[in-house]
């Protein structure tokens, strides 16, 4: 019966394409919006991923996310280093400062101060210059996007100067950094140098980056640090989730994207269900004839489900393909659009489309279930 079902479906081109377009539209909207949401959430934690080389982040217990800096005292660094199971621990400064350009313009800038001796947390992808040049006086490394933001008409080059807190900074390297949620330029420098680029404060240690002994699990080392210092110690991945969850809880971003995803689901279901139902109604006499000829309800249900699954599969493929193409195009053209499609979005969209398919076919199934085969004798 399956080939009859498929021929019935594809024989009615208009309805067939209408249902596919409905499901494809829903699939596209759900996948695209969910991917942009994931991209935005990734941006919120991008700087955590960029700080590499240490497994453990130690911070004030009240820190809520990566930009929520609650400075610790220098003593906290030594306390962390004193915890058994910690191989090493270094400082990390993170803060906002203002960059003053040669034309007098100002720009908020994210400043990262790396441990002077080890430069742990240095940018992973250098485009110009050398990380070791950070040891030069007033040296900074800036991310390429930030450079383009500050000097949009210039080609990135080493030697460019600007001021932070009335102190001249000289760019010794250009790196690629993850795009930040605030879109501010990211400037890397040494820890002691960073303190000269910001107004003085009593406590300036933003984070401690630590590494556990190879014979201990990271979780156990984190637990020991927390127990012995009272500070919060988490892995990079945990800190990413803490940051993303903060934005999810405290901002309307998930709600706004959720509305769009829900609308995609509802509109897709409405279009697909209505068109599919109309298709079934158009063929109700044919279904009645099949019933009269001895086709059981189960066979007819299977036919309808098969039709629904086929259009859902094609619609899903078109939608997810469209969303992927959209994301690839956005990335290829250097668009600032946040787009990241993890497997979860793919699977989630598939499940949503599956639900649309089932909801759409349920109405039709119900209609076919109740149709009397005697309908074929009604002229």
């Amino acid at each position, binding site marked *: 019966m399956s080939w009859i079902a498929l021929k*019935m479906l594809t024989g009615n081109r208009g309805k067939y394409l209408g249902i596919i377009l409905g499901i494809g539209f829903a699939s596209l909207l759900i996948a695209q919006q969910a991917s942009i949401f994931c991209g935005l959430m990734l941006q919120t934690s991008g700087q955590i991923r960029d700080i590499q080389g240490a497994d453990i982040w130690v911070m004030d217990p009240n820190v809520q996310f990566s930009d929520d800096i609650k400075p610790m005292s220098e003593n906290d660094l030594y306390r962390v280093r004193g915890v058994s199971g910690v191989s090493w621990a270094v400082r990390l400064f993170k803060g906002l400062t203002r960059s003053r350009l040669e034309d007098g313009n100002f720009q908020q800038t994210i400043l990262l101060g790396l441990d002077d001796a080890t430069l742990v947390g240095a940018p992973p992808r250098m485009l110009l210059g050398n990380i070791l040049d950070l040891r030069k006086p007033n040296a900074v490394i800036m991310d390429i996007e930030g450079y383009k933001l500050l000097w949009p008409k210039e080609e990135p080059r080493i030697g460019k100067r600007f001021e932070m807190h009335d102190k001249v900074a000289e760019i010794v390297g250009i790196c690629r950094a993850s795009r930040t949620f605030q879109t501010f330029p990211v400037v890397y420098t040494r820890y002691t140098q960073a303190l000269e680029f910001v107004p003085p404060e009593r406590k300036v240690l933003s984070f401690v980056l630590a590494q556990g002994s190879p014979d201990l699990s990271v979780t156990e080392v984190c637990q020991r640090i927390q127990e012995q210092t009272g500070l919060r110690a988490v892995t990079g991945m945990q800190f990413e989730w803490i940051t993303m969850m903060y934005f999810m809880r405290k901002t309307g971003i998930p709600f706004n994207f959720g509305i769009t995803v829900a609308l995609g689901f509802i509109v897709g279901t409405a279009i697909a269900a209505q068109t599919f139902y109309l298709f079934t109604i158009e063929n109700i006499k044919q279904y009645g004839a099949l019933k009269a000829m001895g086709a059981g309800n189960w066979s007819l249900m299977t036919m309808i489900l098969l039709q629904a699954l086929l259009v859902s599969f094609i619609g899903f493929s078109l939608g997810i393909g469209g969303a992927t193409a959209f994301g690839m195009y956005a990335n290829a053209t250097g668009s600032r659009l946040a787009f990241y499609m993890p497997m979860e979005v793919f699977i989630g969209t598939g499940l949503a489309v599956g639900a649309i398919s089932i909801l759409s076919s349920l109405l039709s199934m119900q209609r076919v279930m109740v149709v009397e085969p005697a309908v074929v004798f009604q002229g």
Partner: protein
Amino acid sequence: MNGNNAQPLVTCRDVVKTYGSGNAAVQALRGVNLDVYPGEITMLVGPSGCGKTTLISIVAGILRPTSGGVQALGTELARMSSWRRTAFRRTNVGFVFQQFNLLPALTAAENAAVPLVIQGYSKRAALRQANELLTKMGMADRGDNLPGQLSGGQQQRVAIARALVHHPKLLVCDEPTSALDNRTGHTILELLREIAIEGDRAVMVVTHDPRIFEFADTLARMDDGHIESTERVRERALTA
């Protein structure tokens, strides 16, 4: 009893069918008695609403009578479950509908193969048998045509092929000539006559069309849920 002293294939006794209940109840059949013999065409004629369609629906196992007995091929249909009646129709009944009810997306051969597919035949086996039957019916070159590409007479031939492909003993035809011109209608009835005689099948035809009454072996005139008269047309014609 017919002229050949054959046993009836279908026997209806005091068949009553009521739609709805209470004040809204409508009695479509009011105690119908009818015998349908193999190798014959039995025509049900009468005005609209007299119960013809209800009667063939009951005989074909589509509807269950409210009371009375319907024996078809030795089986009591009135007491069968819906599921068993579906199985009965699948094996024993062929249908020819007024508007043909061919699936527009399927070719003539595919349409004719549908009852076999419903029975679980593979597509290839079903199509082979359907094509053989269409060839016998002079439609060999039309097997790949869609219904929309066929004339009314050709569509009705495909519908008849569909009704016969699984070799049912009972053929139920609802106004088989109403959508056809006079000449084509006669051709179709001649075909049904051949089918009835060659396959020793019982053919029941519901019709308004007096031009085809001459093809009936038995003419059952219905009115208001009753069979008013049953006339042995063929015997009379042969005697005359």
